[in-house]
């Protein structure tokens, strides 16, 4: 039991950190430019495909990861300059429509280029086996993801909380007009943030690729989770995105692993079999509704 709980807690941490990579870009795009980007999940999908394709071509996971992330950054730059720039001044509805259209285009384009079958992405050979820590076994690759996620989280924290660029970004999220009036080129800043967000998407997609299937539609489910994260954390707040990611990642993973067992101890077997998976899937949405009920602006509102 302890083994199971510990393993699932680590899985939750790993999932939460990957969610953070997605949520960080989303919350900044949302917070600074007030732009709803439903296509953020598509960047994650396309990024994962880039990584998988490059890894296959180069026969190396690491080269693939680097090339894929770079490719996604270029794609992000093109999208920002050609489309998103025109959307910032528009209302939320137009943004929803335009980015919904982007999802349709991205899904179909991926299907045309790489076919309907999921792409295989193998983890680096040296990390394929489990790691033994005393009595406890844990996949080495998952540990690597946790390490990667933590490193990026710390880097992002330092960048946003301690650097000058980070200060501009936070100022832009809190009050865009005032920041512009103080002579900061928010437009260029935003292009940079968008490109950075796209690169983080591809990084998450590439790292998760060996664990999940790289396939069409993988972006949509994760997009909803990323939105839940930034709503819980408070839009525009990096700290909120980190806390929200860890909450959502752990609650979701632990809920799926432990709730059915827990319910079986409390309820008759067939009721538990029906209720368990249902409760586990809606747990994070209940959590989000509950948090919004008491804190309508999320846990760490950026515009407090």
């Amino acid at each position, binding site marked *: 039991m302890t083994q199971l709980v510990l393993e699932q807690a680590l899985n939750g941490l790993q999932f939460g950190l990957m969610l953070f990579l997605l949520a960080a870009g989303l919350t900044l795009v*949302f917070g600074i430019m007030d732009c*709803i980007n*439903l296509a953020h999940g598509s960047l994650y999908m396309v990024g994962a495909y880039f990584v998988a394709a490059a890894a296959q071509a180069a026969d190396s996971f690491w080269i693939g990861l680097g090339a894929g992330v770079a490719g996604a950054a270029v794609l992000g730059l093109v999208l920002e300059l050609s*489309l998103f720039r*025109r*959307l910032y001044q*528009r209302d*939320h*509805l*137009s943004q*929803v*429509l*335009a980015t*919904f*259209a*982007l*999802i*349709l*285009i991205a*899904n*179909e*384009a991926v*299907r*045309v280029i790489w076919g309907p079958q999921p792409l295989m992405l193998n983890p680096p050979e040296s990390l394929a086996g489990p790691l033994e820590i005393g009595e406890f076994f844990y996949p080495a690759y998952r540990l690597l993801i946790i390490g990667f996620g933590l490193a990026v989280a710390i880097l992002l924290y330092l960048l946003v909380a301690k650097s000058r660029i980070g200060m501009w970004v936070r100022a832009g999220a809190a009050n865009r007009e005032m920041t512009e009036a103080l002579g900061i080129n928010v437009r260029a800043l935003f292009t940079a943030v968008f490109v950075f967000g796209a690169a983080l998407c591809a990084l998450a997609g590439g790292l998760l690729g060996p664990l999940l299937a790289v396939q069409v539609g993988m972006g*949509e489910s994760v997009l*909803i989770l990323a*939105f*839940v994260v930034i*709503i819980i954390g408070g*839009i525009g707040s990096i700290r909120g995105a980190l806390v929200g990611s860890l909450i959502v990642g752990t609650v979701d993973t632990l809920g799926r692993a432990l709730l059915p067992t827990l319910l079986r101890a409390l309820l008759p077997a067939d009721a538990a*079999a*029906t*209720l368990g*998976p*249902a409760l586990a*899937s*809606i747990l994070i*949405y*209940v959590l*989000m*509704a509950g948090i*919004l*009920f008491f804190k*309508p*602006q*999320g846990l760490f509102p950026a515009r407090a």
Partner: protein
Amino acid sequence: MAFYRPAPWQKPLSVALLIAALALPTLLTAIGQEFYVGFATRVLIFALAATSLNLVLGFGGMVSLGHAAFLGAGAYVAAICQQAGINEALLAFPAAMGVAGLFALLVGAISLRTRGVYFIMITLAFAQMAYYLFVSARAWGGDDGLPLTGKMAFAGIGLGGDTPLYYLALGCLALVMLLFGRLADARFGRTLQAIRENETRMEALGYAVFRYRLAAFALGGALAGLAGALLANLTGLASPNLLQWTQSGTLLVMVIIGGVGYLYGGVVGALILLVLEEFLVGLTPHWHIALGVLLLGVVLFAPKGVAALFGKRHG
């Protein structure tokens, strides 16, 4: 935005369209294209669903990304009614509206405490909850959905074949459009639009802003439930896919293409999107790309929607 006011030629145009719609099945049969009666029914049902969202979104100013939940709830109520032996649409459809309306009342009562993006996301969250509940409800078919044994009966007359259901859907849509037109111009509709324009001011004038919004949200949910019950009869299945968030997105897209806050916005949008889909599917297997590019075009070049041509809004 400003208040909705119908163009003077909207009424005669509505009557002409109704007559054309009444004659459509006969016309299609005459030229041997009965297949399209089913498609036309689908357009009517989605026109109803999109109109119900337009009431919430266009007139109430509430951007809901969870409207498909009410559509799905209506479909499931119809299927469950039939499973329980109630095959009469006059009983099952009001039940579907009632359940969907109550569900919307509950969702609205909690969601309307939030504003803006948070409202979008909390409605989405509730829709996702409903989706996962139906996916894991094994008694109702789980993720396979709950099939209907056949089309229901309306006032004892079977709805088998495509044409009877077409006329039922047309009747429902015409009735709803009539009521919607009256409502938009009546005290309730005016108040609702005024709240959309300036919430603080209406609050200061002593209007119960929250209750007006909640009433509109619940009414929109009930009408979506009616559309869902019709849709279950058309497809013969109440599927959890109906509750997926992409379905909510599609309804939203229909309203935006048609024209947010215009009486016929939902109808025009549903017609355009579904006809476009049908046309593009025949043209290329990769029609999603074409549809996406067209939608981008609408956003960039026709931001007010197509129905904006059919009714003016006076400031």
